[in-house]
C-alpha cells in the first residue's frame, strides 16, 4: 500500500476499523459493439473522500459513471454502491446518492422550485419535509432569488448550479459529478468549485470525473487517472506528480527542427519527455542536472504526470 492509499484508508476508518467502500468496482468490463469502453476496471472509493477520476475523452469516465447508476450494465465484473449490489439493487443505491450529469437534462418549461420539488418527490423526501428540502437546495446553489424563474431563462452557470441542487435535494451520502464544470467560463467554474468544496467539508463522499487537471488538483483528495478504460494510476495529486513526473520539469524552446533533434537525443538518453505548447518538456529534470540544454526550469505538475501516464495531452 502506497503512502497516499494508507492515508486514504486511515481517513476512511471508523473507530479503528476500516469502513466499507462507498463505491467498489471489481473487474468491470463494458463493451459497445467492438469497442471496449471499460476494460476490467477495479476502483474503490472510501466513504467521506473526494475522488477525482481524471482522463482524456474516451477514457471510459462517463461510461463508468453511467454504470454506477445502472444506466449502463457491465458485461463483466461486479459493482456495489453504498453496500447495494448493482444492477439488481441500483434503485436503493440511487435513493441514497445524488447525480450531476455532464449533459444538461433540466426541464426547460419548469421553474427551479418546480424541478426541485419534482425531484424531492422522486427521491422520496417525505411530503412535509419537501418545501424545506427544496429551499435548502436553492440556498446551496445560490438560486433562492431565482426560485420562480423558468430554466430557459437561466444562464449556463445557473443551470449548472441547478443541476447540482437537484442532485443534493435529498441530502445524499454520495454524489457523482460527471464533468461538473465542462464548457463553463472560469468565473462560473470557480463558483462551482466552492460549492463542491463545501460538499467535501460536510463529509459527503464525492466521485467526480473531469478532464480538467486544475479541477482534480484543487478538489480531489485522491486522483485516479483513467486511460483506455482502466485506472492506470491512483494517489494524492502531489504523490502522483512526484512518482510519475519527478519534482522538476525542464522546458526547452526553439525551432521545430531543434526540438526534433533534442527529442531524438532524449530518446537515446532515456529522458521522459512531452510536448508542452511550443516547448519540449523534459520530465524528472532533477535526475539530469548538468546534461540538459539551456531552458526554463519549473516545478513538475499533475499535467506532466497525466501525459506520462496516458500519453495524451489534456486541457
Amino acid at each position, binding site marked *: 500500500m502506497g503512502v497516499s492509499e494508507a492515508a486514504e484508508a486511515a481517513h476512511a476508518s471508523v473507530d479503528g476499523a476500516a469502513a466499507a467502500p462507498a463505491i467498489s468496482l471489481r473487474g468491470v468490463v463494458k463493451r459497445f459493439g467492438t469497442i471496449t469502453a471499460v476494460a476490467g476496471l477495479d476502483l474503490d472509493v472510501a466513504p467521506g473522500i473526494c475522488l477525482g477520476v481524471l482522463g482524456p475523452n474516451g477514457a471510459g469516465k462517463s461510461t463508468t459513471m453511467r454504470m454506477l447508476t445502472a*444506466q449502463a*450494465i457491465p458485461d463483466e465484473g461486479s459493482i456495489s454502491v*453504498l*453496500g447495494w449490489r448493482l444492477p439488481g439493487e441500483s434503485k*436503493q443505491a440511487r*435513493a441514497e446518492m445524488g447525480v450531476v*450529469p455532464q449533459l444538461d437534462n433540466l426541464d426547460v418549461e419548469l421553474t427551479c422550485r*418546480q424541478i426541485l420539488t419534482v425531484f424531492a418527490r422522486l427521491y422520496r423526501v*417525505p411530503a412535509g419535509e419537501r418545501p424545506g428540502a427544496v429551499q435548502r437546495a436553492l440556498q446551496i446553489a445560490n438560486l433562492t432569488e431565482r426560485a420562480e424563474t423558468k430554466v430557459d431563462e437561466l444562464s449556463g452557470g445557473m443551470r449548472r448550479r441547478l443541476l447540482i441542487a437537484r442532485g443534493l435535494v435529498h441530502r445524499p451520502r454520495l454524489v457523482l459529478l460527471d464533468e461538473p464544470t465542462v464548457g463553463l467560463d472560469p468565473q462560473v467554474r470557480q463558483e462551482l468549485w466552492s460549492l463542491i468544496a463545501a460538499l467535501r467539508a460536510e463529509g459527503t463522499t464525492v466521485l467526480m470525473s473531469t478532464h480538467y487537471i486544475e479541477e482534480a488538483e484543487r478538489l480531489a483528495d485522491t486522483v485516479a487517472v483513467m486511460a483506455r478504460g482502466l485506472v492506470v494510476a491512483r494517489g494524492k495529486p502531489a504523490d502522483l506528480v512526484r512518482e510519475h513526473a519527478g519534482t522538476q520539469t525542464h522546458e526547452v524552446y526553439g525551432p521545430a527542427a531543434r526540438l526534433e533533434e533534442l527529442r531524438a537525443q532524449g530518446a537515446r538518453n532515456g529522458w521522459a519527455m512531452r510536448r508542452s505548447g511550443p516547448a519540449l518538456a523534459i520530465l524528472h529534470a532533477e535526475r539530469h542536472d548538468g546534461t540538459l540544454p539551456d531552458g526554463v526550469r519549473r516545478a513538475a505538475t499533475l499535467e506532466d504526470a497525466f501525459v506520462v501516464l496516458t500519453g495524451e495531452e489534456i486541457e
Partner: protein
Amino acid sequence: MSSTRRGRRRLHRLEPAAVIGVMSRDATVFTRNWKTTTFSSIVEPTIYLLAFGFGFGALITSIGGLDYKQYVGTGIVATAVLFSSAFPGMYGTFLKYRFQRTYDAFLAAPVDTDEIVSAEILWIGMRAGVYGNVPLLVAIAFGLDPRPTALLVPIVCFVTGCAFVAFGVALAATAESIDNFSYITSGVLTPMFLTAGTFFPISSFPAGIEAVARLNPLYHCVQLVRDVVVLGVEPLADLGHFAFLLVFGLSLWRVAIWRMRKRLID
C-alpha cells in the same frame, strides 16, 4: 443524512411513489401548457363531428336505427381519444427521451423504466379519459339524449387512451427519427381511424376488410361507447370489447417498457 433517517428500505420494481413522482412532473408541465394541449386534443375531433354530423347528416338520416348525428357523436369519441393519446405518446415521449433527456434525469433518481413508462401512460390516459368526452358533450348540446350508463364513457376513454399511449410510447422507443412517425400516421393511425365504425358501419366493407377491422381497437371503443350512450349495454358483447381493449393495452404496456429499456439502458 436522509437515508439514515428513512432507513435502508428495499425499493420495489413498480413503486407508486415513483410513478406519482413522474406524473407530478407531467402535471406541473401541464399547468403551463394546458391551453395548447387541450385545444389540439379536442378541436379536431369536434370539427369532424360537426362536419360529418351536419354535412353527411343532411344526406343520411339514420344508420342502424340511430340518428346519424348520434351515430357520429358517439363514434367520434374514439377519434378524440386516439388524437389525445397516440400522438402525445409518440411525439411527447420521443422528445423527452431523445432531445430533452428527461428520462435520463429520472433514471439517475430511484426511478426505473417501468415506472417512467407506466406514469406516462397513466397521465396521458387520464387526459384522454377527459378529452374523449368533449365530442359527446357537443353532441348532447345538439340534442343527443344519453342513457345513464353514459357515465361509463370516461372509463372506456381512459382504458382506450392508455392502450394507445402505450402504442405511441412503444413506437417512440423504436423509431430512429421523428420523421418515422409519418409512416405510422399515414399507414396505421389513419386506416384505424377510418375503419373503426365511426362514420359508417364496418359491415359496409368487403368481408376480408371487415374481419381485419374487427381487430381494430378503436372499433371496440366505438362499439362500447355507442352501447353505453345510446344503444344499451349488451353484457357479453361489451365485456368482449372491454377485454379486447384491456389485452391490447396491457400487451402494449409491456412492449413499451421493453422497447424503452433498450433505448435508455446501455
